[in-house]
């Protein structure tokens, strides 16, 4: 009798041990299609840095716990070279590795190339790109990390009108999708505010913008908008505008990169009167985020300010995974995502928008900042609330 009870006990202990040991470890893998070479490399590097940070944070703080088991979070970055087929083949590589969660890519051609593959392989994705069709009802599992100019150009132009006088504006952007989509949206918003716009497009690869500047100034605009021209190009344009004698205010209603523009142009005094979209209002909270990155990763954060937007996006994605209790069911994760409040512990609160502009309410909108340089001196950032639909 004793022996059989002993044996029963041993058997039970052994069986439980086997069950516990056999409980599958939870491995969340996130695919990051990012442009890591060429002129857009800094954006991809910011994306990769943000995701790697969010992943490490999630692991250390055990933020992803599925069915009682804490998950490891690993990141697989692939260089997409800013082309549609680069993004498509990166997505196929993720599909082969059974990765269903994607954070990225950055640019419009890449988003165009990756969406069909994401749909075919039932993946959930958080994408950037200011293209007019970056998300839509045909792609219910694709989310947008933040509004484009359709969201935030208005408040920035208002701020500009408060400080400077201008009735006309010349908008300049490169002649590809990343340029035309944004410039045309900006033009519409300027017009709605009573400022007459003209649009100038330049060939990608132009190095000397003196002819373009001459052409822009022929229309005698009161203000200039650099739209989404890459920082290097924008810097040369500003430098040559000032050399040509233009003294009006300059807007940058496009992505971040003002420090780089200033470096190329030759300093803040060359920028003189300059307004731009800053993805983040730097305050104690966001500085705490920078310190956390440095502590966790052992290096200062990637310089490009898109880093903050990607951290927001990465954390929201992880929160949705946690809420859906699934690491690979795209529909469940998407459903959970739609119900999540748009908020981040360091960056602030916002809400979902996009129904009017894209036809699907899957764009995150959160507080941002308006960067202002007046008379060559940087002013404190003006915090702006999360934009509502419009």
């Amino acid at each position: 009798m004793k022996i059989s009870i002993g044996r029963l006990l041993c058997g039970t202990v052994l069986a439980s041990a086997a069950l516990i040991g056999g409980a599958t470890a939870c491995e969340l893998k996130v695919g990051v299609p990012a442009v890591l070479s060429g002129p857009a490399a800094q954006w991809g590097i910011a994306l990769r840095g943000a995701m790697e940070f969010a992943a490490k944070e999630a692991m250390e703080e055990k933020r992803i716990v599925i069915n009682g088991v804490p998950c490891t979070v690993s990141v697989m970055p692939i260089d997409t070279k800013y082309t549609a087929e680069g993004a498509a083949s990166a997505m196929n590589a993720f599909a082969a590795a059974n990765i269903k969660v994607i954070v990225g890519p950055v640019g419009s051609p890449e988003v165009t190339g990756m969406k069909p593959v994401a749909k075919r392989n039932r993946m959930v994705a958080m994408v950037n790109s200011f293209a007019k069709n970056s998300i839509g009802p045909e792609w219910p599992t694709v989310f947008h990390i933040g509004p484009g100019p359709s969201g935030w150009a208005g408040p920035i132009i208002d701020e500009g009108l408060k400080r400077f006088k201008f009735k006309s504006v010349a908008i300049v952007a490169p002649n590809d999708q990343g340029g035309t989509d944004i410039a045309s949206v900006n033009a519409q918003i300027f017009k709605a505010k009573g400022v007459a716009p003209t649009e100038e497009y330049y060939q990608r690869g132009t190095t000397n913008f003196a002819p373009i500047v001459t052409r822009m100034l022929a229309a005698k605009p009161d203000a200039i908008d650099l739209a989404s021209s890459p920082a290097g190009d924008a810097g040369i344009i500003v430098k040559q505008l000032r050399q040509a004698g233009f003294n009006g205010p300059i807007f940058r209603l496009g992505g971040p990169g003002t420090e780089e523009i200033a470096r190329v142009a030759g300093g803040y005094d060359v920028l003189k009167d300059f307004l731009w979209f800053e993805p983040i209002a730097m305050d104690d909270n966001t500085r705490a985020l920078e310190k956390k990155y440095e502590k966790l990763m052992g290096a200062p954060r990637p310089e490009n300010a898109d880093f903050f937007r990607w951290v927001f996006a990465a954390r929201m994605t992880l929160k949705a995974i946690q809420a859906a209790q699934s690491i690979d069911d795209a529909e469940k994760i998407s459903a959970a995502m739609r119900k999540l409040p748009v908020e981040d512990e360091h960056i602030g609160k916002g809400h979902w928008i996009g129904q009017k502009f894209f036809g699907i309410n899957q764009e995150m909108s959160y507080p941002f900042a308006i960067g202002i340089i007046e008379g060559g001196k940087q002013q404190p950032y003006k915090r702006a609330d999360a934009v509502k639909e419009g």
Partner: protein
Amino acid sequence: MKELPASERAPFFGTYEKVTLGLLLLAFAVPFLTRNPQILSQSNLILIAATAALGVYIMLRMDLMSFAVPAFMAVGGYTVAMLGIRSGVTDVFALAAAAFLVSALCAVPLGWMILRLKGVYFVLVTFVLTEICQLLLFEAGPLTGGSNGLVGMPSVTVFGYEMYDNSHVLMITAGLAFVGFLIAAVLTRALRYEFAAIEKNDVLAESLGLACWKYKALAFSVAAGVSGLAGFALVNMLLTAHPTSFSPLSSVNYITYAIVGGKGSILGTLIGAAILVSATEFFALRGELSPGLYGLLIIVMTLVAPGGIMGLAENFFRRFGKRDSKALETKVAVQSGSGHS
């Protein structure tokens, strides 16, 4: 030109052609052997790259280096996208014929303009052509979708059956690649003596009575048509005709595939594409270093194997085959056309 007596002529399709076509037929089997999306995607990219590199190979048979392949790929790709989106044409045979013919026809007036140029002039003019093509795609906004391209092409159909997922896409690409290689093989083998004469010294060939312009024009049109097929395959894979897919910089890639593979034989084009596309995918995992690693690979391969990989293989077999028979050597030399190494 007098034909050699039937007993002495090399067979119509040489060993290389047979091997190449055989490998392409094997590509059809890949979707049945695996469901792995990466293998499917990689094979797809390799086949598209090889077909595009064919456009370079055909012109290289006459020692003309063409940078115009992306331009004709764009013609083929956009034609297919427009037919699919605007006219609802989805039958793969109709689309393939359209991609080939429209590109080949566009090549006729262009060829008339530029084929009298040689050497580095030809290179530059074809490069300028591709740049012009990109700009036209942007300027002709309403027709081509401008910088956004034409998005949302419907899936192609084969006899009414819709080909929509990864393995189907690969089969379409394999089919297009096979057709492209078949056409290229037929052309280069049927006219191998004429091409070889033009490649060696076209002025001399002309003085001996060869109407060079006819062969150059034919080759240029066929190369354009084959590039059009490659463009179709690319647009089909992405379901979008986007200008960034046809950038002038990609012409350098296609030229690299043809040369590193070995410009002396059609098999070289396929091998070169397979190895270099795989290398690019592999390097992409290393982020910022990828272009540099690719550049190093090119340098090393060119130094080690000036005749391309096929040239290296030929030398290898020649050294080992020397003990066996002289006949094998002659056979290999004749079949590789101009005997370049």
